[in-house]
């Protein structure tokens, strides 16, 4: 296969993944949430158990009127939803599915790349919130920025811990170096990374930037139709990315208990991603939203010290071995 064809195929696969995975997660969320609340969820869109609910949503969103508020900053308002998707698309490029280069783009400092690009999602939020010319949107954007500035720290520190343990910044390298006992050794980092990741993608219980009972819809308040759909897609793509990163960094990626790692590694990765995504949905249904001060408190008094202690522990164990 020529190099350019290879590249095109890989990029195509990534685009398909980034558009299909959020739909799957969204549909799962509908069903999981419904059954956790003793309901059934969508049943009529699509013949079997409402499987096409999100397809119907998409078909509707393209028909919706495209509204731009008169006071809005039009170009910024219109470009923000597209930018919200970009970081997640780029991150998916470097997440390894299986051993032996089952990855769209190999990168030696993949971890650094992921952390750098992941933080850019908030810029789209800031653009959307400011350009909407709406006070609720602006408040949502400010909350998002404050949240991101806080949670970026434990997020990076927890990732640094596992990178230090593996002795590499390559995502594939981290999976190669991973051993089952790391589940215990890196457990605090896993928890910190997962929680900070939830906060970074503004997912319940850290969804204060949206907080529909306080801020109507935060930065989404003026968006309709396809632009709104893009933001929703970005949110669910964020779940996929955070689950994939947790899987690759802390749960051993393609390593399974039965030894078929080279053949079925991608399957293990997908199963683990699905499980972590399920936990993300589960947490949303079980817990209410934190208050803004509780959010900052949890970050600075809980997650940051925990991440620092984990760093010290990792360094200690690494030196002792």
């Amino acid at each position, binding site marked *: 296969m020529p190099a350019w064809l290879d590249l095109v195929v890989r990029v195509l696969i990534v685009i398909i993944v980034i558009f299909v995975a959020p739909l799957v997660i969204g549909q799962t969320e509908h069903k999981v949430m419904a059954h956790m609340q003793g309901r059934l969820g969508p049943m009529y869109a699509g013949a079997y158990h409402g499987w096409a609910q999100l397809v119907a949503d998409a078909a509707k969103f393209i028909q919706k009127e495209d509204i731009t508020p008169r*006071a*809005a*900053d039009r170009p*910024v308002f219109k470009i923000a939803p597209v930018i919200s998707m970009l970081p997640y698309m780029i991150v998916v490029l470097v997440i390894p599915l299986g051993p032996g280069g089952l990855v769209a783009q190999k990168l*030696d*400092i993949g971890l*650094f*790349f992921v*952390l*750098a*690009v992941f*933080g*850019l999602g*908030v*810029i789209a939020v*800031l*653009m959307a*919130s*400011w*350009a909407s*010319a709406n006070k609720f949107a*602006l408040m949502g*954007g*400010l909350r998002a*920025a*404050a949240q*991101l*500035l806080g949670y*970026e720290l434990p997020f*990076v520190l927890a990732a640094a811990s596992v990178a230090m343990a593996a002795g590499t*910044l390559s995502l594939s390298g981290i999976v190669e170096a991973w051993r089952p006992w790391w589940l215990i050794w890196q457990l605090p980092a896993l928890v910190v990374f997962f929680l900070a990741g939830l906060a970074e993608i503004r997912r319940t219980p850290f969804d204060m930037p949206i907080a529909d009972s306080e801020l109507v819809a935060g930065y989404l308040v003026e968006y309709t139709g396809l632009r709104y759909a893009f933001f929703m897609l970005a949110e669910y793509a964020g779940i996929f990315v955070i689950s994939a990163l947790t899987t690759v960094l802390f749960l051993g990626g393609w390593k399974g208990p039965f030894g078929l790692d080279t053949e079925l590694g991608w399957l293990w990765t997908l199963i683990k991603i699905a499980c972590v995504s399920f936990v993300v949905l589960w947490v949303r249904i079980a817990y209410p939203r934190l208050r803004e001060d509780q959010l900052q408190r949890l970050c600075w008094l809980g997650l940051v010290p925990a991440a620092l202690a984990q760093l010290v522990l990792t360094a200690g164990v690494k030196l002792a071995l």
Partner: protein
Amino acid sequence: MTVADVLLITIGAVVLGSALLVVTTRHLVRAGLWLIVTLIGVAAAYLVLTAEMVAWVQILLYLGAVVVLLLFAVMLTRAPIGVSDDLNRPRWPGALVGLGAAGALGALLVNAYRWEKVELPEAGTAERIGEQVFQSWVLPFELVGLLLLAALIGAIVLSQPGDDSVSGRKK
């Protein structure tokens, strides 16, 4: 002209253009947004020069933290949509300082390298940066660390709720 040259020139044009927009646009927040384009361009230039690590650090710190903080501050204080007429930007002194600094830097670089061909070093991986920082440049690195620590402690001391009569707050 190699591909890298073309890329560098293109990126340079983008960076220059967006940087000019940062200082000339009359939309306050859009200046911050153009700054993002500028910084991404600079990161892209680093990438072309195979300094991968520096490029991503640039994105992580400058875009993920500094610009976000900047936009945050602008939005928190005042964020008019549309043209701000009361921007106090002395045009000629600004242009003079900017052009002067650019000229001086350019002269310095031209003087240093003339038209020498410089082979690109190997890709700037994490390992190489680590070696450089912790071997050749360990003293400055430690000094910077000390400085940051001092700044951190200072910030904590300043943010302490001090004299009740001054701040008007009860502990």
